[in-house]
């Protein structure tokens, strides 16, 4: 494993599969009498959140607590950051408090990378600007493998099969929506292609990143053409708060061309699943009936978030703290 987790692109295929396999094992802790492991006892994990977040922060908090780490939550609101403290000074404060790992979410792309210069503990990127959100990509990959992974040798889809050690080879994943502003899309394209999936991004021309041809994926403007050949439909949130210009005429037009409704869902292959990183805009990128259908993995994604983050924290903090990292 790497010392820090900043980009999904830093993970090799072996690293990624190790995280998924570890999460697979940790998922069984959920069903036990005592849902706690002593592994990270005595270590401190700081959640440093400069942006609002419910599921990611609580998910990291739950993950760290299940592993018996001490958790300090630090949100920009109501802290010295509101008084103008810089990221560096905050980092030095955390360093002085002996943080073994810092989980950071920041509105500026690149903030987690910068933080690695200032703290001696591990840094986990929990979303930076429009750059990356690697743990979301890991939990998405985990969910896809759980629902669609192929049992070894058979090429058949099936739940319950042992998928340890397997990637996502040959699965067709289509990521739809505001790709331009989406850190989830960026991390997913990098990770899923590392794991062997064929990724296609679909967006209106105005929401397609300029350098998309350098990404390890196909790009398309036409959602309807991709429906029949997708095993996974990953719908992205329309991020109104990051849109500084008019990227499409109206919500209604966006929905008509890029929203996943029941009509479009009917055109998906029988086994295909529908994902959304949340929070959803029901009725914009995804219709309520689709979000609540049994093809939707949205609730499973949240549950898997905790186990995947436990796996990441365990693999980063559970071993020797110095030497080969």
């Amino acid at each position, binding site marked *: *494993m790497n010392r820090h987790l900043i980009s999904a692109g830093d993970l090799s295929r072996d690293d990624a599969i*190790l995280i998924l*396999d*570890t999460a697979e*094992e*940790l998922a*069984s802790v959920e069903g*036990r*009498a*005592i849902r*706690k*492991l*002593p*592994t990270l006892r005595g270590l401190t994990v700081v959640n440093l959140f400069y942006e609002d977040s419910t599921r990611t922060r609580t998910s990291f908090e739950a993950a760290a607590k299940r592993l018996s780490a001490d958790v300090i939550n630090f949100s920009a609101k109501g802290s010295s950051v509101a008084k103008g403290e810089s990221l560096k000074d905050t980092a030095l404060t955390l360093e002085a408090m002996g943080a073994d790992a810092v989980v950071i979410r920041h509105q500026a792309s690149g903030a987690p990378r910068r933080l690695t210069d200032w703290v001696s503990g591990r840094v986990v990127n929990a979303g930076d600007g429009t750059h990356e959100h690697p743990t979301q990509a890991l939990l998405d990959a985990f969910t896809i493998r759980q629902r669609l992974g192929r049992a070894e040798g058979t090429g058949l889809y099936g739940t319950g099969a042992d998928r340890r050690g397997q990637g996502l080879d040959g699965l067709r994943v289509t990521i739809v929506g505001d790709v331009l502003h989406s850190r989830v899309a960026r991390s997913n394209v990098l990770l899923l292609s590392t794991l062997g999936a064929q990724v296609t991004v679909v967006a209106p021309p105005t929401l397609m990143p300029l350098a998309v041809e350098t990404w390890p994926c196909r790009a398309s403007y036409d959602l309807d053409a991709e429906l029949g050949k997708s095993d996974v439909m990953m719908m992205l949130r329309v991020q109104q708060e990051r849109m500084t210009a008019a990227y499409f005429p109206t919500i209604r037009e966006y929905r008509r061309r890029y929203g996943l409704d029941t009509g479009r869902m009917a055109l998906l292959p029988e086994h295909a699943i529908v994902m959304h990183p949340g929070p959803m805009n029901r009725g914009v990128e995804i219709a309520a009936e689709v979000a609540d259908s049994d093809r939707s993995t949205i609730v499973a994604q949240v549950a898997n978030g905790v186990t995947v983050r436990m796996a990441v924290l*365990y*693999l*980063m*903090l*559970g*071993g*020797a*703290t110095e*030497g*080969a*990292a």
Partner: protein
Amino acid sequence: MCAMRPEPVHEPGPSGQGHGVQGHGVQGHGGPGDSGVQARPAAPRPGGEGWKAVLTPEEIRRALTRIAHEILERTHGGEGVVLLGIPTRGVYLARRLAARIGEFEGTAVPVGSLDVTMHRDDLRLRPARALQRTQVPPDGVDGKTVVLVDDVLFSGRTIRAALDALNDLGRPRSVQLAVLVDRGHRELPIRADYVGKNLPTAHREKVRVQLAEIDGEDSVLLGEVDQ
């Protein structure tokens, strides 16, 4: 937990041990009180230079058969017994024991596996390791007689971790320990209830158990130092 059994190949406890036994007592067989089985050149097993076979496939088979009988005796016909193997090789040994008990008594004993990685006390000494599988039989362990199964009993630290891990899974009525090889050098007050073979070793020697399921053949090998 009591390990007194009047079995022929059994010793009450590991002989001449203690920490830091260095430099002598290197012989891997014919320990005092042992029935002096192996010694015969058990077809120098592959596994490299410096390894010598101390248990043959037949001896392993007999040891497991005996342990299966002992478990049945001690638990009154295997009532309420759950076998939990410690990965990797303990799991295969647990399955073999369950198969034998099934043959002898016609009862199906639940088998599972118990990964102890997250409970180890030496996690910080090495890079994080991959987890192995924990599979508890559907009826759980509450009120059962859990027999932990491992290949080699050495410092006892793995078993301590296993006891902690088990604690989080439920509350067994009692816990017993079965091992294929007891090589001595305990660092904790832990003792096995069922032992396949007591193997006096020097602290620096290595014991390697190979099983057909993953290694292609059954054998127990004793190796000198840094292998």
